[in-house]
């Protein structure tokens, strides 16, 4: 037998009719027969109140799922409260106390009353829109309201809304959307507007979340962004970029720099060698004028005995026995040399060098101790040099000796610099601390956008929205939105974490705007972002 009873329900004046059917199966289920428009059935049910039980049951069943408000209810909705009850403190552990049960029931009742409230608006406040399935847009048929400042677009003289914007405005109670001349419910909106190939449910969740916070959210259009190349052309090079480029030029082509360095070194060598060559003859002159030491290694024979170079026969003279004339001391007259030393038939008289002697400075120079030491060192060096020169057997070796001496004089000892592995840096060269640090650095710094322009997009990861700050909503212009605050990429907790490749590709697509990953977890949204970060250097170039 059927049994039925009335159960009074919530603030919405609906009576539910709870039916227990025992004739169908063990599972007690409710049969639902529902007409199309609830209001109609209400009237029918009221009219059928007098008739038999079955009709009453049927009507009541129809009412069970009825969420349509009667006109009186609609009218009464004008004076609804607009406040949300504040949630109190939670309990820690459930004990079966009455107090807890009561509080739970109160919370639940509050919860249901909020959830089951239906949206009621004045028809004059609603903007009428029509859903166009083929174009997947909502066309507005009455003038747009305040939301037009940040949402929607116009085309062909008509105003359109994107599906996610339309759905959000429906939830706010600002627009009423019609499809085939009938108003659609929010459930219809979700099912028709959201799909995996257009706006997904997760993307709409993120969109709604941000809009409710007040942000201005637009769809991201990758083709509207300037490519990295275009950006390079149009924007002035920032200092960082120029610095990076300079660094690259220095470090990336080692062969180039090495060769340039070599060239530089060679130049300097040449200079130094040539400058050395000048003091060398000068030094060679000195012994000639200094008081009587009788150097016997005067092999070049340039100054004193030019005629001796003309002798073709190898000299078998004992040079150690031939003394140079002392031009400094004495009266100023130089005795003629041994005729045996002269080529045949030449007779030389006494040479008067008095005029030359006047040109010689014989004044004893009062040297300080430092200068004396310096002179000593120099003379010692000259002795060493002379010994080394003596060891050379031919001009080639002499030139090598000069090169070696030149290198050492610059501080480049051969055992360090002539092998395969050379020192990183020549101490005599000027270098800034930053360059030196660069030379000894093992880990090269890399930047997020290195090589990013070569990457192509991969399908599941794409930037969905541009997000603009809420405080600029008053003077926001849809035609010139300006630089977004962030760009959103929507993903799920159950999917993979984005890897470096994805991050690079999205960052390069986004330009200088940070990319935020909105991770959706069945109703919870968390926002994550990756920042490009350089380790600090205590070095200022």
């Amino acid at each position, binding site marked *: 037998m059927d049994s039925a009873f009335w159960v009074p329900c919530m603030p919405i004046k609906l009576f539910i009719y709870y039916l227990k059917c025992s004739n169908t199966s063990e599972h007690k289920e409710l049969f639902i027969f529902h007409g*199309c428009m609830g*209001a109609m059935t209400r009237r029918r049910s009221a009219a059928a109140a007098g008739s038999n039980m079955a009709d009453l049951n049927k009507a009541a069943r129809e009412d069970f799922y009825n969420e*349509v408000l009667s006109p009186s209810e609609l009218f009464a909705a004008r004076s609804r409260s607009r406040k949300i009850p504040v949630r109190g403190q939670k309990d820690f552990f459930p004990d079966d106390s009455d107090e807890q049960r009561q509080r739970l029931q109160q919370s639940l009742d509050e919860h249901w009353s909020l959830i089951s409230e239906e*949206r009621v608006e004045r028809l004059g406040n609603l903007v009428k829109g029509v859903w166009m399935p083929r174009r997947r847009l909502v066309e507005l048929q009455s003038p747009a309201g305040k939301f037009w400042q940040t949402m929607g677009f116009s085309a062909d003289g008509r105003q359109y809304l994107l599906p996610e914007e339309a759905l959000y405005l429906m939830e706010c109670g600002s627009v009423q959307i019609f499809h085939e001349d009938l*108003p659609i*419910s929010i459930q219809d909106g979700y099912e028709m507007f959201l799909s995996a190939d257009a706006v997904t449910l997760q993307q709409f969740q993120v969109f709604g979340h941000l809009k409710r916070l007040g942000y201005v959210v637009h769809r991201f259009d990758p083709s509207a962004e300037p490519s990295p190349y275009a950006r390079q052309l149009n924007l002035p090079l920032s200092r960082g970029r120029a610095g990076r480029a300079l660094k690259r030029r220095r470090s990336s082509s080692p062969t180039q720099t090495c060769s340039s360095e070599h060239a530089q070194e060679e130049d300097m060598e040449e200079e130094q060698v040539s400058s050395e060559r000048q003091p060398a003859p000068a030094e060679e002159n000195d012994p000639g004028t200094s008081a009587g030491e009788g150097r016997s290694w005067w092999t070049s024979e340039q100054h004193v005995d030019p005629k001796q170079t003309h002798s073709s026969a190898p000299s078998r003279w004992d040079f150690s026995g031939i003394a140079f004339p002392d031009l400094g001391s004495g009266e100023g007259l130089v005795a003629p040399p041994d005729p045996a030393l002269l080529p045949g038939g030449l007779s030389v008289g006494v040479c008067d060098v008095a005029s030359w002697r006047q040109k010689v400075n014989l004044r004893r120079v009062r040297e300080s101790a430092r200068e004396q030491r310096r002179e000593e060192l120099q003379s010692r060096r000259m002795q060493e040099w002379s010994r080394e020169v003596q060891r050379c057997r031919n001009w080639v070796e002499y030139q090598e000796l000069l090169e070696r001496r030149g290198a050492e004089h610059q501080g480049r000892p051969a055992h360090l610099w002539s092998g395969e592995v050379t020192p990183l840096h020549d101490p005599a060269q000027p270098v800034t601390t930053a360059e030196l640090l660069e030379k000894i650095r093992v880990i090269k710094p890399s930047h997020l956008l290195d090589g990013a322009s070569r990457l192509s997009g991969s399908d599941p990861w794409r930037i969905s929205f541009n997000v603009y700050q809420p405080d600029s909503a008053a003077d926001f212009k849809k035609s010139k939105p300006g630089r977004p605050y962030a760009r959103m990429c929507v993903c799920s907790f159950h999917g993979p974490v984005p890897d470096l490749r994805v991050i690079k590709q999205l960052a390069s697509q986004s330009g200088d705007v940070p990319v935020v990953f909105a991770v959706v977890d*069945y109703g919870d949204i968390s926002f994550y972002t990756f920042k490009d970060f350089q380790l600090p250097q205590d070095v200022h170039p």
Partner: protein
Amino acid sequence: MEDLSVPRREELQPDSSPVVGISVCDSAPLIWRVQDLKVVRSGGLVGALLGSLPRTPRQNGRLGRPLLLLPEEERLLREGPGAAVLPRPGGERGAELKRRFEEEQTSSQEEQSVLALQDRKAALLRAMTSSLTEEAQQDRLGALDQNFVFPRSALAVQLSTARAGLHYCPEARSFLEAEQPIKTQPSPSSRFQVFRDLRGRGFFLTSAGKFGGDFLVYPGDPLRFHAHFIAVCVESDRPVGVLDLLAVARLGSNVKKTVLLCSPVADGDVRYTSLQWSGMV
């Protein structure tokens, strides 16, 4: 570790709850109707609300319908009392419905106009003190009757959340399911086993992505109680690295919840290990 104070998992009793209608949107199971939400809640399944709250749509603290079900919750519903995918509206929208809608609008406008007039009269009466004579009052009311106009733009209209006009027979439920298979995400069976076991012990479960786990375990309704555990599903035969354990234990201790490592074993039972950060003894 077994908690003997909580009763063991029992067979889900087929209670006297009606079949819940699930609507699928972008392969996610959503519940729209308030009665369905109540049934689901009374079955101990919490879900997550996604939409704006009608009373205050521009805030994120309290959200409204639809309710999104976890894949485990949806599977449990289908195995238990019963849930079926609601059919999409087919060619129902036709001239008939349009006619009805217009009729309904006009009748609603008439009724509301009457109510508005009554309301205005009552306000006028309240405003008029007894200083005026009875005749003057009647005159005023008469004038109101004459001049009162209830424009179309003042009509209060409902923007329905759930779709009206649904009908289906539970006897045809199996037929419906066959016709429209639920194309939702399949849940890995280990997670479902853990979910079913914990639910059977009377706990309420929600998703815990933010806490680094699989489920948040509440001892009672989440409206009134804080969560006690973060449940992490671990395969019983797979080794777990110590660093992972440390990470999850740290997370749990920071939010003052116990981490519960759950491993379903072959015979349908689930083994639990709890991790709690305590000092050195």
